[in-house]
């Protein structure tokens, strides 16, 4: 039940490694913030700095408006759930949950009430007398959650709490944590490398890479309006397809002439193919976009925006492509098509149906939805169109 502010936070480890760079974030009360990024991007370091387990090299962290840089972890009134559970192995589940309250000298009756209430919320009542080693992974993680919620802290910190669980349990716990969030109505900061967790649970997501914040946005905005290629490729499963090319213009309008950039000319010549022009919608013809004319760009398209139905291909004939089918993955409600373009780059299409009539090596024509095309600068990878 608090706000958290991070102001120009920098973390440099003793060995000189720059883990976090100029981190700025204002977290509102009752937000479910997700820090997401590949391993080593500094997201856990940020969390540990908020927790007080890691010193802050530069900048300020405040909880409820009070700067906590020099407040020790035990006095910050935060609770944390660790990836490896970090339960007290010599204590029963009851004592594990009660420990923090005992340390704060809460009266015994109240401890008992609160522990039993937390246990009920997490279906742990039956397990209160057990030791951690007698529990399964999912139960242990529930105890770790119980230990956090019993405290009724200002802020919850969760450091990849689900990554040690198997796939099925992970989905269950994901739902449980979301429910818990709705029940508790408190501020949660959650670290994960799993974009599915990020997208499904968070109210706002912070995408990090190499210690630098790439984008802070709601899940929908992050998905629809990624600010750069990294965010675009990191969020979404399967990831966004990219097609390298050059921005051009003729009488029919703006187009991306698809061709691999950056490979040497010799290689290019062996793959000599008819260049494919993928036309952009007239509304993109702005000054900002025109500035990239004749320059290399990267076109991005999400798998669900590649169509193969004849009527769709007909409708979007300005953006159609000849591709070779490589693999068809049938997932039941939908199918993934793994495709290869004439210039040898890979595309993935998500078809909202069961695909039966495509075989390996079949040549098919697909069309890109021009409304959902993203365009990125080739060098800076910053978004031009989204």
């Amino acid at each position, binding site marked *: 039940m608090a706000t958290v502010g991070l102001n120009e936070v920098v973390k440099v480890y003793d060995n000189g490694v720059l883990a976090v760079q100029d981190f700025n974030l204002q977290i509102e009360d009752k937000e479910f913030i997700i820090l997401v990024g590949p391993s080593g991007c500094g997201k856990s370091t940020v969390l540990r700095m908020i927790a007080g*387990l890691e010193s802050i090299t530069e900048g300020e962290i405040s909880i409820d408006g009070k700067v906590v840089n020099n407040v020790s972890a*035990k006095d910050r009134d935060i609770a944390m759930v660790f990836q490896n559970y970090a339960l007290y192995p010599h204590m029963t589940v009851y004592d594990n949950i009660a420990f923090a309250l005992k340390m704060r000298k809460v009266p015994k009756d109240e401890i008992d009430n609160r522990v039993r209430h937390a246990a009920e919320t997490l279906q742990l009542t039956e397990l209160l007398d057990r030791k951690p080693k007698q529990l399964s992974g999912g139960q242990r993680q529930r105890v770790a959650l119980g230990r956090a919620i019993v405290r009724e802290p200002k802020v919850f910190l969760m450091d990849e709490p689900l990554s040690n669980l198997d796939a099925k349990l992970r989905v269950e716990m994901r739902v449980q944590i979301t429910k818990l969030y709705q029940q508790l109505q408190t501020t949660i900061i959650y670290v994960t490398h799993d974009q599915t967790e990020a997208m499904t649970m968070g109210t706002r997501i912070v995408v990090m890479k190499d210690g630098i914040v790439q984008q802070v946005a709601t899940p929908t905005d992050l998905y629809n309006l990624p600010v750069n290629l990294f965010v675009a490729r990191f969020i979404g499963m399967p990831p966004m397809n990219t097609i390298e090319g050059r921005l051009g213009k003729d009488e029919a309008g703006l187009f991306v002439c698809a061709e691999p950039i950056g490979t040497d000319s010799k290689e290019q010549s062996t793959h000599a193919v008819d260049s494919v022009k993928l036309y952009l919608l007239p509304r993109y013809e702005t000054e900002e976009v025109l500035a990239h004319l004749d320059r290399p760009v990267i076109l991005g398209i999400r798998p669900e925006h590649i169509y193969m139905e004849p009527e769709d291909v007909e409708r979007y004939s300005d953006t159609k492509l000849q591709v070779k089918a490589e693999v068809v993955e049938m997932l039941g409600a939908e199918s993934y098509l793994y495709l290869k373009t004439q210039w040898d780059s890979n595309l993935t299409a998500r078809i909202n149906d069961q695909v039966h009539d495509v075989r390996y090596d079949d040549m098919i024509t697909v069309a890109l939805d021009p409304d959902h095309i993203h365009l990125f600068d080739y060098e800076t990878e910053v978004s031009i169109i989204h």
Partner: protein
Amino acid sequence: MKPKRKVWRGIVTALLLIWTFFPIYWMISLAIRGNEELTSALSFFPKSFTFEHFRMLFVKHHFEQALWNSFIVTAISLIIALIVGLACSYILVRVRFRFGLRKVSFFWILLVRVLPPIAFAMPLYFIFNYLQLSETRLPIIVAHLLINLPLIIWFTMTSIDSLAQGIEESAQIDGASEWQIYSHIILPQIYPSIAAVGMLSFMASWNEYLYAVIFIQKRDLFTLPLLLSTMNSEQELTQWGQIGAGGIISMIPVLIFVIFAQRYLIAGLSSGGVKE
């Protein structure tokens, strides 16, 4: 298993058992024989039975005094060694040292254990003499600390080091102070090693002779090993029966301590807290 191997196994086990238990049997059998039997050629089984030697221990030698002395010296040195040693280990493992001081400190602590005990006896003797403490129990207690501290630090350092550090961080966030983390989280997890090293230290202290013979001059401060050794003196005939009886009695506290400490020798006490 093949029957032949089974037989061999049985034979080896039996030999080992005889090897270990024979001295104890012999001690008991000496302690309960009459004096007349002890002076002549000894038979394997005692022909007479008496408690006289036990009685004589207390009447003639004030054995109870030696028992008490040994108990005091062992208990005080063990308690101090455990308190100081465990705290030392925790600091050596968890506190950050600069300039490789950790290695240096650890080396010095181990060195005390590695050097022959007699090397420390002379300097200590002079120090205590100078301080006019040689008539007290202090020198022998300090000497026993010297034996036990390095062992305790060495032993428990490895166990503390193997504990998952995330658990301490978790306690820190739960609001535990450094002292509470140490007493509520660290120590309970290493009870098995404390029990094991406590046993070893107790025995080392209880049976210690070299320092006792150098540091203890007053007869009413004699510890058990020292008193038993005086019964084998040149002035009078060796009292085999009383030595045996003394041996038996001095074994009892060690046994009690071992049985008590064994309850904590449970393997895997610290497992299950974190996902490995």
